[in-house]
């Protein structure tokens, strides 16, 4: 399992809205786990977390821990931030394609999830880089899942 980080590094950690049907995801982040929903009807791993399967329309959802590793699918580097990120630029916004445990991913790729890449020089990042999850706690006790070089 990935490390739970004590610090948010340089980036702000805005509070997410914790909707009830994604609460298992957020509860797990507080423990440093990347917990994803999977449909019991069709086996699809669902992203973003929700209590509904967009593939087969089932409400029968279970939750499992992903390894927290993956690779960079794409990224961008804003030179100016807005709102909470006003003083944070430059930083890296990225899609990371998650690795799934054996037997849970089917034949397709894992979900591509929006995140930040941290603990790296923004201009050293490349598509395809291997990364692993870090957890940046918010004041209310959940955490944002970001990634650092593996």
């Amino acid at each position: 399992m990935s490390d739970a980080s004590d610090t948010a590094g340089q980036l702000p950690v805005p509070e997410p809205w914790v909707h009830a049907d994604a609460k298992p995801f957020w509860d797990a982040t507080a423990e440093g786990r990347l917990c994803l929903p999977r449909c019991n009807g069709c086996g699809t791993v669902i992203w973003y977390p929700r209590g509904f399967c967009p593939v087969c329309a089932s409400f029968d959802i279970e939750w499992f821990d992903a390894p927290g590793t993956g690779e960079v699918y794409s990224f961008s580097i804003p030179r100016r931030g807005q709102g909470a990120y006003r003083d944070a630029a430059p930083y890296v916004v990225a899609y990371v394609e998650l690795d799934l445990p054996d037997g849970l991913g089917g034949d397709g790729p894992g979900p591509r999830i929006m995140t930040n890449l941290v603990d790296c020089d923004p201009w050293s990042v490349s598509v395809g880089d291997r990364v692993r999850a870090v957890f940046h706690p918010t004041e209310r006790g959940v955490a944002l899942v970001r990634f650092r070089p593996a």
Partner: protein
Amino acid sequence: MALGRLPAVTGTIRGAAHLAGAYEHPLRTIPDRTTPQIHAEVAVGALADAGLTMGDVDAYFCAGDAPGFGPLSMAEYLGLDRLAYVDSTEIGGSSYVAHVGHAAAAIAAGKCHVALITLAGKPRTGGSGPGGSGRVGDAPEFSFEVPFGTSVLTNYALAATRHMHEFGTTSAQLAEIKVAASTHAQHNPNAFLRDVVTVEEVLESPMVCDPLHRLDSCVITDGGGALVVVSPEVARTLDRHCPVVLGHGEAPKHTGNGRIDLTHTGAVWSGPRAFEEAGVTPADVDYASIYDSFTITVLQTIEDLGFCAKGDGGRFVADGGLQAPHGRLPFNTDGGGLCNNHPTNRGGITKVIEAVRQLRGEAHPAVQVPDCDIALAHGTGGSLGTRHGSATLILGREA
């Protein structure tokens, strides 16, 4: 039950409606008008262009830029009191391209005869904020994107990075799109940016979000526009050239359960629908208005509409490929959103307006495409990096 493969939809809007009026607000900074006033100003302008009045309107279309209760607030403000049809489809900047298709379908179904479409807003001088898409915070995807400092800019840049990775597209190729737009904008006295720029100037402009430069981005302008779509019966009574609606297609694209492919837009679905309905192919298109929120939007859309193969967009736009009147695909001859106007961060309506000018032979002589018979207008509303609306409209000259 699963429906399986259904027979092709046989209804069509081909020839069922005409663009009788088109009006673009001439200003790009409008401090002394309210947003509803600008809606009214462009409505009056488009109706006058058609030779119609507010009292003739029996259908009204608006999107997220319309204040208050959308079509209800605006119908009251404008004094539209014989409406039989309203539509407030909100798919960002692509809304107004879709509205034309919806209006044509309503006319074809006998629901109305004179449809008014308006857009207005003032992100430069106050009033409603940019975008205007309403309650973003309660969107179920919000917490899985916005806390990471995402924006429209970061998300289009994500698409550019991936397209560059897969196909070798370069910043210099993207810059060619801005160069073509600026070459056209020099002839438009109302354009927000009228200076012709070079590839080098685009590449030397500040990086705003790698890999996109400031000059890869559209302008931010106050403004608005309106369209009047009418039935053939009404068009015949008007003393105005009314281009005909040949086809329309639309499609939302979203992240697809987290398996988003950032190298294409929703135009891969909306385009073929529009071409099939119109009975034409990309090779038949004389002029194209392509939504240009960013240069990468144009590049991907051109590929997705079939003007070139996927991945060949960079080569297609090089060497003046988009420049009017004689490029491979003359595009955005008003200067587009990159140089002319992107009223209230929603460019769909100006895309249709310039297509109408081209079909009427009323574009600036320096950029008028000779014998322009078939024009395409494409809208992309939202973000390439997450979710967006895609709407394609094909119009014919038919005097």
